[in-house]
């Protein structure tokens, strides 16, 4: 029973963390361009970037 007091909050916390991460990425627009994201790894950055 003592284990449960510790484990259940941990399990729920981890789940909530995942949910929060999903919401965050949704708001960041990471799901807007799924096909493009797969291709961007092939894009070379320009040497000098103006910040």
């Amino acid at each position, binding site marked *: 029973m003592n284990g*449960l007091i510790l484990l*259940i909050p941990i*399990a729920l916390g981890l*789940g909530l963390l995942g949910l929060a991460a999903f*919401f965050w990425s949704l708001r960041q627009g990471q799901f807007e*361009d799924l096909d*493009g994201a797969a*291709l*961007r790894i092939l894009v070379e950055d320009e040497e000098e970037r103006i910040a």
Partner: protein
Amino acid sequence: MTAAALVERDFAVPDIRCAGCIAKLEQGLVRDRRIAAARVNFTERRVHLSCTPDTGMPDLIGAFSSLGFEAHPIGTGPDEADAEAETSRELLRAVAVSGFAMMNIMLLSVSVWSGAAGATRDLFHWLSAAIALPTVAYAGRPFFRSAWRALRHRRTNMDVPISIGVLLVSVMSLYETATHGAHAYFDGAVMLLFFLLCGRWLDSVMRDRARGGVTALLRNMGTGAMVFQHDRATQWVDATALEPDMVMLVAAGERLAADGVVTSGSSSVDLSLLTGESAPQAVRPGDVVHAGTLNLDAPLKVRVTAAGADTAIADIARLMGEAAQGKSRYVRIADRAARLYAPAVHCLALLAFAGWMVAGAGWHHSLLIAAAVLIITCPCALGLAVPAAQIVAAGALMRKGVLIKDGSALERLSEVDLALVDKTGTLTLGRPEALDLGQLDVGVKSLILALAQSSRHPLSEALTRGLQAFDVRPAELASIRETPGFGVEARWAGHVVTLGRPVGTGLGDALATQFAVDGRPVATIRFADQLRPDAHGAVDALREAGIAAMILSGDRAEAVAPVARELGLTAQTGMSPQDKLAAIARQTAVGHKVLMLGDGLNDGPALAAGHASMAPGSASDAGKNAADCIFLGDRLMPVVETVRMARRTQAVVRQNFMLAIVYNVVAVPLAFAGLVTPLIAAIAMSGSSLLVVGNALRLRGAIR
């Protein structure tokens, strides 16, 4: 430069194909000082720019074309589209929340089912309640809203039993928990929400994806024009800001943004999108020209007589709006099922409650059984049956270059039994193709190719396209010069070579161009709008599929007759948009379900009125907006493939319904008998959902 001073603009760039294009655009565009940031959306083939407010539209389009891309400005999206994207995001959030809740509650429920008892079971039930109740309140909103809307109008839909079921089960389970009962159905309630939300979300994803594809295709016809100011300088004016008596300068190859009268210049205009007429019409000062037509030869000055809502196009738009009203009467298969299903479910649950009350089981036990009946009959599989099959079918078709606007389009497509087909641009390619190029010598071909490549005139483009098939290299030419209204001229090995308007060949108004060396005609090339390469096969395949075809054309009888003869179809010619509408109404009245195929503005109302409709990717914006689906490329076969796919999809949907009914036939008696524990409910629900989704996935391989 401050961020606040920047304006945001969106462009559709259909030619983005690879990672190289992304890099080229994002890095190339920002080299222009006025463009602060560029972001490519590959999925939707769009580019989002932040630029300084003084950057004109032609400059931005110029920046794209200097990188080798054709860009079409997209107006600030209609609010409707934004609202739909927001709905789909809200659904996705609800799916995520209910998925999270379902998994965690299931974790606790498994412990209860494997024998947790006493205080542990109570603790787990309370924890489940703490997760489930906020989830039901958050993720259930789409269903509650829709059910409430239906009830307020004294109707019922699928969402009414769902909402009642979920709420009743939650309240009952809470009561169970508070009274230390053995069975809490929190897992069932949340699982039900999760599966149903998945179905809703799939449905909305499908609409979004197709809408994205369609916006990328829209050219936003005549989105503006160069207008002469008082000081004779020209400035770009947006189509919405055009006013009567402004004078537009319309370059060759540009579409007119407003109706007007030609004040100077002579040219020919392509009316095919407006009327279906395939031969271009010559225009001289004083002639009336309409918005949406394409100026072919030479720059024209046009005095605007009507813009925006007053143009000839607007009349067609009004007709389209009226025609589309009829289509909204179509009731989707899931809703038709719900009309029978919802009352049956309610009666069953009521019956179970009354039965157990009469049998003396006490109100608590009876209510629990009624709740079990509601939750077990709740159309978990039914909610997934339709969208799962339709999204798989739409995905398979999209890979084939067919965009389906929504699920109801697939349902309607499966029912059609008569195809009414427009000629220009639908059965034919809708663009001039050079004839008899094979008879020219190789030397002449390479000279013509070199001249044609240097011009953007539609005939030159047709020549370039046609000659590239012959594997010839363009000749080396010097001092190439294009004279609007005449043609291209260049120097080659001491001779003057020209490609231009034919002189004195007696060809009448047929489309032709003449190649001459030092003014001496060498070759005359004629052009004609050609049938799509597989038009014959597609018409035959349609007939095999039990769909008779008929031509409805706005073109003259002489132009339609050869096509009709070649394909063995009957044809009606010289039809106005109203005539086409009337033809559809006549066929509908005798019981046909009409599939309308068309591309032009003049087909818009007919596309909106047909039971189902398809348009080629080269269609007018109005045509693409009105059609249920759009096929890309030069082949006509996708039309037949789409109809076949729609029929297969409908078959799978029906199988799914059968599965759901069989499941109910087994599960309802169990629930009636009070034998459905939360464990059985969970197994039955997820089992039937998996079965339905698995069946839908079979459609993936249905199209070769």
